[in-house]
């Protein structure tokens, strides 16, 4: 491939790298877990608390229907929010780090 070689373990100790790694981990795993909890609450609540899903909120439209719709909105929100944070913070930090190394 003709690529230059890096000293990986040296980069791995770079404070900027450690900062990037920490922030990425907290953000990505944090949101992944949060979104998953919201997602799994759907089968859980509908299976064990069906009465909740039957509460009518707008006309005949009940909590269950709106809760399902909210799953779509939450997924889109996570995607958009992550894009904003990644474009603003992570990409910036990565670029600074790569500049420093090269």
């Amino acid at each position, binding site marked *: 491939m003709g690529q230059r070689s890096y000293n990986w373990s040296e980069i791995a100790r770079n404070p900027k790298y450690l900062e990037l790694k920490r922030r990425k981990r907290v953000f990505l795993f944090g949101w992944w877990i949060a979104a998953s909890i919201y997602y799994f609450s759907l089968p859980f609540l509908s299976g064990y608390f069906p009465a909740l*899903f039957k509460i009518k909120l707008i006309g005949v439209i009940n909590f269950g229907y709106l809760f399902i719709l909210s799953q779509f909105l939450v997924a889109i929100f996570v995607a958009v929010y*992550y894009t904003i944070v990644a474009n603003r913070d992570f990409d910036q930090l990565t670029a600074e780090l790569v500049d420093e190394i090269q």
Partner: protein
Amino acid sequence: MFTNILALQDRISALTKLYSDGKTQKITSNLLTALMLTLFLTTVGFTAEPSKSAQQANVAAAPAAPAQKLATTVTAPAPAASSPAPVSGLPTKVRPNRAITISMFLTIIGITLCVVIWAARSTKSAADFYTAGGGITGLQNGWAIAGDYMSAASFLGMSGLISLYGIDGFMYAVGPMFSFIAILLVIAEPCRNAGKYTLGDILSFRTSPKPVRAVAAISTVTVSLFYLIAQMVGAGKLMQVLLDIPYRVSVIGVGVLMVGYVVFGGMKATTWVQIIKAGLLMSGTVVLALLVMIKSGMNPIVFFADIVANPLIQDHVRINVLKDALPTPGFDYGQRFMEPGLFLKNPLDQVSLGIAWALGAAGLPHILMRFFTVPSAKEARKSIVIALFINSTFFFLINIIGFGAALYLSPQLISSVDKGGNMATLLLAQLLGGGAGSLGGDMFLAFICAVAFATILAVVSGLVLAASAAIAHDVYVNIVMDGKADQQTQVKVARITSLFVGLAAILMGLAAEKENVVALVALAFAVAASGNFPAVMLSLFWKRFNTAGVISALLVGTTSALALVLISPVMTYPQKIADDARKIVVTLEKKQAEGVILAEKDLKVLDKSRKDYAKNNGGTSMVGLKAPIFPLKNPGLVSVPLGLLAAILGTLLFRDKRAEDMFDEIEVRQITGLGISKASEH
């Protein structure tokens, strides 16, 4: 039409000859020409010979459609699909206009073949073949991922599920929509940064390459073939029902086309076929949903109020789903349609399926491969966000289409055409286009049929490419040849492999005509979630993870998923069919004994049930069981923890210093993108 295609075929062969002087290449293209010839000869032949039996379509192609088994309980005394009960003079079979539909199919084939010719021109290196040279943009890749992921099962099956079971069908759509969250947050970018062409590339990064690549290749081929066969069988049955094209002809036809796309055009052609398909699918879905909303006066509150107040839906819920012979006083059966529990009954089953969706999609090799087609992690991120947008819009619109179908067609009509509801979208298109027989109805129905056809083509092409990449790149180039193969050989081998994977898929698709393919898709997702997903995650994020860990994750994940599906309720249990048939026989005979003269329809049912009973009584499932041992339809709840546990145990039992030392490298690479494999460099 025939000569046109021959001419096209000649041009393709000429083109491939231009780019290769190897003998094998010639053989490949000759074989393909022969196959295409057979296909179109048979196509010409079938027009004169309508298929003998058009059974109900079983568009089984997502872990979605377990409708099949449940469906028998839906239509009251289970009439044979060939003699559906007529409902208020409406048609009981979808009858697309053959001329219009087939010309739309041919238009799609024509356009995609042009794409293939164009893509073949620039497919010279291995990187071109597997990843389109990394030259796909985030936007294009987003559409292609959506095109790779949305199957005919979602398009036809899920709206059908909603039209028969209301809100439960909509709840079902959340899983496939949500799968992109794990991909977006923890899989896509790290994989793009650390990988090259295949799953094996990522897993073998800091482990012993040969055994790991071999196991990764086996897993990839297994998952892709399971999924592929399910799609082929679904395609064959769909075409049979819609156009009376014999099952064999459609399976071979779809197979030949997908082989053509992949062998000649590689990833570039596959990507564009997927983009075109996603565009067609989304326009069809948007128009259909819009027509539903216009018909309901653009007011969702009124729309749902109409559904709840609809007497046919109320009857359907009461008689077919809840089996209340007499209405319970004060019970609102219409509102019940908007409440969960009509289809999804076991909460644990739902959680298990939810796991398969949330993690399985992230472990599907054909989806994984798509991240390598973009030049950077940033573009990979963008493509997943776009795919997530398209996907969630799609599943949201499917909900409108499904409820619209229930309201404007009635669940009775939909289940009389197909017990699982798979024809709901098509019937609705015909109705909203102007009704059966009208030009608008014919055109719109033909268009939606063509969309389903394009959908199948796009999904199967991606699968063939992923399976052949695993064989050609992991097994041949890296295990057999020790990575020492020049670009020309690599492409040649990849093309030959694709041809054979395609042929294998066609043969297995033909053999599986009568099989219960629902289990296959559940299996593909379960294997991906329980084996591939933990292996990829731990490779990227766990320092100690090593060869033993990868191998035990893949082996235990795959075998436990396989074993659990084999003893689960998704398999066919003849004894259960026999028991159900006996119940019908007893009920009907009791009626006869009471002096009731049975209608002709009931007599047929009685006759069929007697035969079913005689045929299936005492029979056992594929693994010799009379009834399922494992209670869940999807094994995820058990097999994912097992795969993960095996990965951890294997890793801890066989420590590997080298793998730990190399962790810094893979971690820095995946986080920063330094040293990224620029697919275009060669």
